[in-house]
Each structure stands twice: as C-alpha cells, then as structure tokens.
C-alpha cells in the first residue's frame, strides 16, 4: 500500500464523522452544556404552579360576573394565560441575554421606566381602580410602568454595586450614595402618583440589595430608621385620608365601614369562612357574591382562602416560599456580585410584596395596591415578574458554566 509514495493515512474516522455529529433534538436538550440542563427547574415549576393556580382563582372570581354582564366568562382566564405566555417569552429573553450586554441594556431599561413614570403623571396617565399609575395605550392595552421600574432598579443597583474594584469587596459610601441617587428619581415619581405600596417595595429592595452587597451596617440601619421616621412622621401629613385609613383599619375594622373597612372585613370573612379545606373552587359564597372588590387582582388570595381553604391557601404560601428559597439559593451560588445582587433584589421584591399582599387580606397589613406575584391578574406585573425570574435563571445558568455543580 506504499507503492506510489503516498500512504494515505487511513482515517480513523470518516470525514463525515469529522463534522459535528448530527445530534437529535432530544440529545441536544439533554446535553450537559445545554442551557436547559442548567435551568433551575424547581424554581420554574414553582412559578408555573403559581401562575396556573392564579389562573384558576382569577377564573373563579370573574366567571360569574362576566356571565351576568353578558360577556365571555373565560375572558380573564384567557388574558391571564396570554399574559403568562408573553411573560414567558420576555423571561426567556431575560434568561438568554448576555450578561455583559445586560449591563449595557440596564441604563436603557432604567431610562424607559423613568420615562414611563413621567408619562403616568402627564395627562396621558390614567386612573384605574383608584390608582393613578397607568398609561392607556390604543387597542385596550394598559401599562403600569412602576412594575417595570422595580425591575429597572434591581438591575441598576446590581450594576452599580457589582462593579468589581480592586481589593474592594464591599460598597463604599460613595457607591451607596450613587445607588440612592439612582433610586430617588423613580421613587419620587411613584410617590407623586401616589403609590405608597410600590414605594415601600422600593425601600425594601434597596435595603435588601445594599445589605447583601455588604454595605456598612450604618447605611442599612440608617436607611431603615429613616424609612420608619419618614413613614411615621411625614406620611400622616402627606398621605390623604383614604390612605391613612388603610393603616388605621388594620387595628380597627370599624373605621370607614363603607370604604376600606368594608374591603378588609369582607376579605377576612372570605378567608376565615374557608376553613380547612375550603368551599370548593367556584363555590365560595363571598367570592361568587362579589363581596370583595378587586378580587382578581389585589385580593386574589381571598379566593384561595375561601374556596381552597387552609390547604390551598397555605400551599400557595409554601410555593411562594419555595420561589424565595430558590432565589436566595441562586444568590448564594452566584459567581459574581452582579448576579448575586440581582437575585437578592428579586427576592426582596417578591418577599416583601407577597407579605404585604397576603398580610392585607389577613388583616395584619394595611391595604395597598400591590398584586400577589404570579397569581394576581395583570399584564404589567406578570411581565415584570417573569422577566425577574428570567434574570434569576440567567444568573443560575452562569453559575453552572463556571461554578461548581451543587444540586
């Protein structure tokens, strides 16, 4: 085989095999390096459960009334599903976008959010269900920019505090001041709406991110005290009567029995009458009788309390807990400060908002217009929430690329 001086090495592999192997979709999905393999599936399933239960609760709360109005009984359920699908798309985008480019996008997201908040205050803003926090777009679409602003400041703060500096692990005073400056503008705009609940979410997100970033305790403690002072001393002068009533009514439901006191009382009756196992989906007398206003949005937890009972409503709390737990796990495992801070911000956001939302239906927190993440009906919040989950997944996947596996 050497006569013509040439000896063709017999290829050990065929040329065909030199090219990348044609892998099946199945193989690709299950590949070790596949992004799907490195997703936090537990988090995803938990969020999916919440969105799914949310759909059922929204359906139950709206179905009967839609029928009496002669409208499609499933309209709210459908829109919830559409919101979830769009949110999923946005979340996937947020999960797949390059980390570095995320930093480039952050200023744009931040700027867009602030612009949105400004528009709300302009004549283009609209008041829906008593909250002046909407922009009404043609074709029946509405946007609540404050939901996106939460996302913007989480990313913005993570960017500012996550810049690595030589020999420095923790933010300096200047960084903290920068962060506060960053958050001041959207917070001021939200206060002007006025949306006290979202402002409080901002404060807790700032506290959470600063704290996890390792900011000096004096800043964290100082901000906390400042927040309490502002809340205790300034709020009574700035807030309107109806807003103050929302606080007073927590301790005394007799206040304002036809206004917010009514909501609180009816919400408590709904949840309390649910008992251990609930009255069954679609069979809650309080829910089907529409005694609770805004039940598909801010008071959606009362549907769970009444119709699914302690088992269902407690289950929702536990699944929310699972989401928060996975978020904190992602923060712990994050390989860079940016990812860790994003995770910490998202957990603070969801944690505080869930607590206030469920707490108000249980009569231990004041009534605010905050939705229950993933469960409540509403496009803007669904989009923002799922994008935040996308970001968590993004952080999680990056931790897998370079960090130890720690399942």
């Amino acid at each position: 085989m050497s006569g013509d001086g040439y000896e063709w090495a017999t290829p050990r592999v065929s040329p065909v095999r030199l090219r990348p192997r044609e892998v099946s979709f199945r193989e690709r999905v299950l590949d070790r390096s596949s992004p799907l393999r490195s997703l936090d599936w537990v988090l995803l399933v938990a969020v999916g459960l919440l969105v799914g239960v949310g759909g059922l609760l929204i359906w139950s709360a709206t179905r009967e009334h839609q029928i009496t109005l002669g409208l499609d009984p499933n309209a709210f359920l459908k829109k919830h599903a559409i919101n979830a699908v769009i949110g999923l798309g946005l979340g996937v985008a947020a999960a797949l976008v390059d980390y570095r480019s995320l930093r480039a996008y952050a200023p744009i997201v931040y700027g867009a959010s602030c612009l949105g908040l400004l528009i709300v205050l302009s004549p283009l803003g609209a008041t829906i269900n008593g909250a002046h926090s909407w922009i009404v777009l043609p074709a029946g679409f509405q946007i609540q920019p404050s939901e996106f602003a939460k996302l913007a400041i989480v990313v913005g703060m993570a960017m500012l505090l996550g810049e690595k500096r030589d020999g420095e692990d923790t933010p300096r005073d200047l960084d903290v001041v920068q962060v506060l400056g960053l958050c001041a503008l959207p917070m001021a705009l939200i206060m002007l709406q006025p949306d006290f609940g979202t402002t409080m979410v901002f404060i807790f997100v700032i506290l959470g991110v600063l704290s996890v970033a390792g900011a000096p305790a004096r800043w964290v403690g100082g901000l906390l005290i400042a927040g309490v002072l502002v809340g205790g001393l300034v709020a009574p002068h700035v807030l309107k009567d109806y807003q103050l009533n929302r606080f007073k009514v927590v301790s005394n439901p007799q206040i304002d029995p036809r206004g917010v006191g009514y909501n609180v009382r009816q919400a408590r009756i709904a949840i309390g009458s649910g008992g251990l196992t609930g009255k069954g989906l679609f069979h809650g007398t309080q829910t089907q009788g529409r005694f609770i206003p805004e039940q598909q949005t801010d008071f959606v937890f009362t549907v769970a309390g009444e119709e699914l009972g302690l088992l269902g409503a407690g289950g929702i709390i536990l699944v929310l807990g699972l989401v928060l737990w996975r978020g904190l796990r992602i923060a712990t495992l994050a390989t860079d400060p940016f990812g860790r801070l994003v995770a910490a911000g998202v957990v603070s956001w969801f944690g505080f908002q869930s607590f206030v939302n469920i707490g108000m239906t249980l009569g231990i927190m004041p009534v605010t217009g905050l939705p229950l993440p993933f469960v409540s009906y509403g496009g803007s919040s669904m989009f923002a929430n799922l994008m935040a989950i996308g970001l968590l997944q993004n952080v999680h996947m990056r931790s897998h690329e370079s960090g130890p596996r720690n399942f």
Partner: protein
Amino acid sequence: MSDRSRLRIVLLRVMVVSILLTLLGRLTYMQVAEGANYRNAASANRTRDVITAPARGQILDDRGVALVTNRIALVVSVDRSELPAKKKGGSLELSRLSLIVGIPVADIERIITPCIYSKPDGTRVKAIDGCWKGSPYQPVPIASYRSDALAQVRRMLKIVEQEENFPGVSVQYEAVRDYPAKTLAAHALGYLGPLSDTDLKQDKYKRLAPGTQIGRAGVEAVYDDQLRGQDGVRRLLVDKDGNTAGVASETPAIAGQNLVLSIDSGVQRAAEAALQQQIAKTRTMPDTSKDRSGNFKATTGAAITVEVNTGRVVAMASYPRYDPTDFVGGISTKKYTELLNAPGHPLISNAVQGSFAPGSTFKIVSTSAAIKSGAYNLKSYIPCPSSYLGKRNFEGESFGTLDFRETLIRSCDTVFYQIALNLWKREGGRTNKAGAPEYLANEARDFGFGKKTGIDLPDERAGVVPDRAWKLRYWKQVKGEYCKGAKRRPKTDPQQRVDQIYCDSGYFYEGGDAMNLAIGQGDVLVTPLQLAMAYSAMVNGGTLYKPQLAKGFVSADGRTSTEIKKVVTGRLDVPAAVRTYITSALAGVTKPPGTAKGTFADFPLGQVDVGGKTGTAEVANNKKAPTSWFASFAPVVHPRYVTVVMVTEGGTGGTTAAPVVKKIWDAVYGLQGAKSPLKNGALPVGMPCVRADGTIASPPCIAPRTVTVSPSPSASTGTHALGLPWSEEARRRQLS
C-alpha cells in the same frame, strides 16, 4: 463573596422564613380557630330579608259597614344613608325635593333625622322634635299622597323620572289607612303610628321591623296583632351590590283579619250628631246661676250605648273629636301638639279615659247600700227638707216625706244626706279604723266603680271610690302643701285655718264625705262607661259584663269567622226585689213628676218605655257649671240597652244630657222620624261575611261556621298611647 454578604444572605433567609411562618400562622388561626365565626358572618352576608307587609285588616261595624279600610297611597321616602355624603349633607338634593313635595328643607331634615343615633366619633346626638323614630338605616317616609290626587301624583313622577337628581329618594305605592266614615267612631278606632326603637324592646314587637305601622290608640292598638297579620319574609340570595341571585326561602305574608265591632255605625252617627248638636245648643244658653255668668261652656261630652245582656258597645262618642286621617302617613309634631293641647283634649275618649263626679246617677248605688245596711227597707219613708245640716237640695225644693221611689224620681239630695250620715255613724263615724263596713263605698265597688271595666281599649281610667283608706292615702300625698301653707300664712288669713285643719286632721273620713258620696259628688269619680255597665247590671238581672267593642274577626278571605264570647266580670250583690224596685222607680223619672219629664214629654213612651236617672254634679264649688248626666235604659220591661250621656259644664242632667239620650233612643228604635239601622231595635245576629269578590255582606249571610272564642288576654291591656298628659289627678284638679 465577602463574609458580610454571606451573613446578610443568611439574614434574608431568616426573614423570608419568619414572614412565611407569620402568614401561615395567621391563616391557620383565622380559618381554623375563628372559622365558625367567619362562616356565620359569610352566611349573613349572603342573604337579605325582604319584608313584605301584609294587608292590614279592615275594621267593620256590626253590619259589615267599613269604618277603616286601606287605600293605596303614593309615599315619598328619603334614605339618609343614600344622601350624598357631601359637607352640606346633600342639602342641594333636599332643596330640590322640597320644591316638589312642598315641605321646607329644614322640616325634611328634621323628619329624616333619627331620634337616637351616634355620630361616627361615637357621641350620641340628642333627639330633636319630630325626629324619625324608626331605624336609622331605613328610608323615612316624608310625605304621602292619595293616589287619586292626580296633580300631586304627576309631581311625584318627576322624582321617578329624574332619579339621578334625587339620590336616596324613593316614591312607592303603599297601603295606608282610609276612613270611609270620616271621623265616625274615631275614639274607638284609634290610629296608627310607626314602631319606635323603644317599642322594639317589648316582646310583642320584637319580630317587627322598626318603622312598621302599629296601632297606637283605640282598637287599632288593642287588636294590633290580629289586624296586622304576619309579615312575609323573602330571604334573597344577593351579591354585594344587592343584585338578587335567587330566593333562599319565602314565607308569604298573611293578611290581617277583619275586625268586626259591635259598634253600629247608624247608632254611632246619631249619638255623635246628637252630642255635638246638644253641646252647640247648650253653649248658646245663658247660665243663670248666681255663681257664674255668660253661657254654658259645655266643654266636653261623652255618649255611650251598651247592650245590657252582653256588654257589647253599640255606640261610643266623645266630644270634642279628632280626625284619624291626620295620622295617615305620619302626623306632624305641630299637629300632634295642637291636638294634645286643644281645649277639651280631643285625643281623649271621655267615655273611658275621663272620669267625672257622677252626681245623682250614683243614687241607685246609695239606695241599694241604704237598704242592704239594714237601716232602711223598701217601705221606708224619709223626710225631704230643702236643706239638711246646711246642705241644700239642688234648687232648694222640699217635698215632705218620700219613699225611695219618689226620692229617686225627684232626686232629693237631703234624703240621701240623712241616709249617708246615718250609715256613717253606723260605720263608726269619725274613725279610720280598718275593716269598718263602709256601706256606700263597698256598694260602689260592687257596682264596678273604682276599677277598670276591662274594655278592649287602651288607657282606661279606674275612677275613684273615696273611702277611709283612700282618704288617708290621699291626705298623706297632699298634706305637705297644706302643712307648709299653715306655717307660712299669717294667723289672720282664713286660708291658714283651713290649711291647719287639713294638715292636722285631713285624714278623717268625715260625715260630710259620706254625704257627698251619697249624691255622687265630692271625691268620687266614674267614667261614663263604668256608669253604663253599673246601670246594665242593675237592669239586666244583676250581671256585670266586660264591655267589648270587638264582636269578632273575619279572615281576609272570609273562610274563617270567630265571634268573641261575652265575659261576666261580676254579679251585683243586690237582692232581686231591690233591683226591680229601683228599675221600676227609674221608669218614673221620664214621666211627671220625674226630673227628665220635660225632655221626654214628646217621646213616644207608649211605643218604647224608657227609664233613667238624671245627674247634675256640682264641681269646683259652683265656679263651673255642673256636669250634666243622664243614665238611661230601654225598654223598661226586659231592657236591652243602656245609654249614658255626660256633658261637662253642661247644666242639669234633665236639660242637657237627657235630650241626647232621647235622640239616641230615637235612632235605635226608629222613633220620631229617625230611620233606624236596626230591625225593631235589635242588633244583627251573626257576623258579616266576605264575598268571593272581597266585598262585605251584612248578616244574616251565608257565613262559614263561626267559632266563638274568649277575648284574648291582651285585649284589655293594649298599647299605651303616646304618653297622654292625662291623669286622675289632672282631671280632679280641672274639675274641683
């Protein structure tokens, strides 16, 4: 990652766990520990009871003639809670409403203000005049219009058409009381008024909604339960906006029963007319007494006719009278105050709620007492001088020596003075010893005086029978004033001596007290009704009946009919011979030389023989004209009816009261051109019937089997009217 960051994440974890536990703990507490409470609240939330008012029963006379019916009225109501909660309290809306209903805004505001309510800060607001007595959460009716008053109905339609301009204002058709016979028998019928919060505390009203119209006076009050029927309740399933989602349960309203009175509207009309005309006539007559000047005032009057063998009241009139229509749709405070304070107190039924000195009509009691004491018998002759111990006969006449028959016919006072003093001495004279026989007072009580007859009307007076115990009780009540006066006045003042004597010894039952009582004057007070029942017992064989206005009930659909039994409340302890003697003596009063001979001179006594006794009770030391009485029965043989007429400040019994009685007998028996509604002077037997079309047929008619029942025990108690400013003492002060 810095240690600090790691630590902070752990801290965040702890916080997350603690908020989750907080929420789970609170959720468990609410759903498990307090679940039952919330479940109750939830079920109360979901149902609303809608009360459907039953049609109130009609009130009919003995022949089925409607005295009280229902008509449809257009009622304008204001729901305070729906008025805009503006600073001005919706005054713009109210002024708009004011223009339409023609009631000043201030008045509307007053009418709709609840009498008792708390402001949001917990302070209670004092009740104002004319405030709303019902529930603060209920629409308040402010005006009611006849549905046939077209002009007004058209104006009300404006409210319906421009609903948005009148938030909280509703216009609805409601059944209200109607009085086809106008003011006829108003005092017996009574009127309705809204149920107040204080009424709700009474057991019998517990189940009613505040503001429900309930009987406030007359038989409307006493037979409220039967007339009202039972509320229907529709328990609706509702959502929070009050949208009906279905009916959970339904109890239909049961219409009230029709009340059949023993009152005969024909006799009643004649009695009212005769009383009114006689009072008007008396007021034109000069009072010739030397103690007074001008015409007779004839301030008030009463006339009552009862059936002697049953106690049924055939006619009951009181003057002055009121118009029950004033109370329909709510009476204004102004109007009500006017009625309360009007001269003669028109809201008072003088026949049962007024008590007066009976004068000589009381002499049947004194006669019976004299004979029962054993000191006299039916053959006794007693001198009738013109005066005895300084007390003169009415016109100073003297008739020599008279037997009891002549004494009663001529109404000789001095005979009874002697008898009274004699009996008083037998009782022990000036003593307060308990257990003394007290012939006159005991006899009076035997005839039913001094206690309520138990008629089915509210606020009946018991009257006063003064005896030794009463004298002592009364002295204890009032001696303070006299003793103070005795101390304060100078010894030269004659009043000082009077005060001193009363202060020292006013508790003694003096001979003068007995002499006054024997001729029905002094402290004795009786109601015209009591007198009628006493005379009934005298002439019917000695049975005291409970007087009754209600004859029975006929259900709204006519299927059931109940007749109320007569009730015996006592028997006269008077020997038959004495009763017969007195009855036959009284038959002579209407004939010469009787005290009523003049009045009955033109009466066909040959057709219907009539007996009676005049009474002329001097009051207030003759500063006022005497109370005029005539107590009469007819026919003399087997008497069927007793009629008593009384006119205060009216003059003698023969001239003022007796003519009214005569006209009532005319009406009962169809004499002297009067058209009698009664056949041969007999009341209809049996109950009226309800025909298939709902109209009423007079008896005799084909009625369902009628059940006879005893009167319900509540019938004698009744609702007290709205705190009438009336008391025994007030009446006494006015008269003496």
